[in-house]
């Protein structure tokens, strides 16, 4: 059991897991730190550079957590996309869809 899973099967990646929740928590933090860090750094306040640095680290951490999963989710989904698009067009044009 690892804190952050780095290898994913397509079926596992499609589920909502703790890695998604980590990203959900870290992402707003990154926004807050980047926004405040840029403003305070432009004023040349030392705390600004610290906050900006933390913002960059938090952003990198967020990508490190979620990117392996997103890659697998995307790869698997794109294989099915054509079939889904055909179903969407049938629905938009009021054609009966008997497929599951």
């Amino acid at each position, binding site marked *: 059991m690892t804190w952050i899973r780095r290898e994913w099967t397509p079926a596992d990646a*499609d589920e909502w897991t703790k890695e998604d929740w980590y*990203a959900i928590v870290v992402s707003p933090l990154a926004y807050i730190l980047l926004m405040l860090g840029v403003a305070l750094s432009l004023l040349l306040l030392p705390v600004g550079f610290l906050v900006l640095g933390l913002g960059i680290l938090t952003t990198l951490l967020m990508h490190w957590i979620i990117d392996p999963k997103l890659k697998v989710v995307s790869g698997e989904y794109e294989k099915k996309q054509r079939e889904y698009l055909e179903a*969407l067009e049938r629905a938009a044009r009021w054609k009966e869809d008997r497929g599951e």
Partner: protein
Amino acid sequence: MPAKVGPVSWKLLAAEFNDGMVAFGFLDWLWVGVYLFIMVGAGVLFYRLGRRGESDFFLAGRGLPWWLPAASVYATHTATDTPMWVSGVIYRHGLAGLWYSFFAAWCAISAFVSTRIFRRSLAYTQAEWNTVRFSGLGAELLRGWMSGWQVFMSMFILGWVGIAMGKVCQYVFGWPLWAGLVLFSSICAVYVMAAGYWGVIMADFLQGVIAFAVILLVSLWGVVAAGGPSAIVSRLAAMGEDGRLNPFAFSGWFTGDFPIAWFATMLFIALVGGFGMGTSIDWYVEAQRIQSARTVRDASYSIWWGTALVLTRNSVWAVAILGFYVLYPNIRHTAEYEMAWFRIGFDFLPAGMVGFFFAGIIAIHLSTISAILNLGAMYLTRDLYLHYWKQTASERELVWVGRIATVLLLVGSFFYGLMMEEITSWLIFALWIMAAGVWLPNILQVVWWRFNAWGYLASWIANLGLSWLVVWVLPSFGVLPELPDYQQFWVLMVLGALIYLPVTLLTKPDDMDHLIRYYVMSRPIGWWGPVRREAERRGLLRPVPAA
């Protein structure tokens, strides 16, 4: 965010120009001419791609790498009125004012939740998503309502942003009010009609780069004009205003103009809203960018990074406005200090650069106009024409309908723009209704399988009445005190739930086959247990392994 353009502010700007402080030389006109040539050129260049079919005209073939829609997110959300809004809150509150623009942070969670779910649904529009998620008559009613509302809103926003440009041109060049509105929106419509979303996205990328360069240049120029960063800090301290450097300078728990209760409500609305679709008015524009991304991953990163740019851009503006405050600390009129960033540009930039600044203003303007023109045309074409009018339309026909829809929206925006003074106040109220009372239903439709189309429709209808009651009618009769807007939000949320939750539970759930199809395709987050179990029973999904 609603624009903050008032007649007084434009008169103040006019005073600057009419005093001869801004004069356009050859170099200035050259900047503007070259810029407009490049924008229209983008339309001509991508004409062949845009005409290939509906998917290309409205979604660039769903093949864009993340950085293109990200640039578009950034460019679209940098409108003519945005620097006024940011200038106003920063001048009033100091760095704490940054939180007023933090509503954009709904994308922090949306990028990894609702963006992912919406991209997997493949719906062109939020209206179409209604029929992917819900089923039966209720879903069709929702799609019709949503598409009509979005066409109306597109014309309204086009008129609003367009007339702001009309006022700028009236006071800069002495043109009649309609001239700036008609000229720049029409130039924009040329490349939107020619290349559709391909033209929008490519122009947005260029406009985003130009706008960011101009914002950075003008803002840093303003900081230097105020004596530099250290001088701004020390002068604020000398004025006894160093609290303006504190982003958390609260005025109390519930009192003053920056209470903690407001801050907590804002964070809640902005961040938790990311679980839903439509919790921000910006969602409808972003939804198009999400679907134009080539993969789910590209969609997530485009939304995240586009918004990161928006938030850091606000920070750059904020520092410039602090510099402006140090230079002009005693401005009382809101309309006057909202012009702070424009004044920095026109007052302090050297000769020859004013045209560059004006080209930047045009870039900021056209990126919003082009995005909304194409978005409104997509609702008219995909949801109204194709779905309800002519289901056998060919791809070629749909592209032409898209172009005609673009013209209709353009002409409609001229009328809206010119009557804007009269209708603005109640339309702002309509926008507030959208934000407050349907916020929770916009989340429930994503996270709760049992929430159905009738419940969602009920929330919209209930909210129309409740908003009037809570905001205007009951306070005027003394039944309810006049509440601050953040308290109105909570009251409207609770009262609305008392209506749409019973409606939901007293009407039938959506068709299980339909829900399963949606679930397997989109894999939504939240309370979908019965649908999940049925999908597993049918062998469409494997059971979740025990942790």
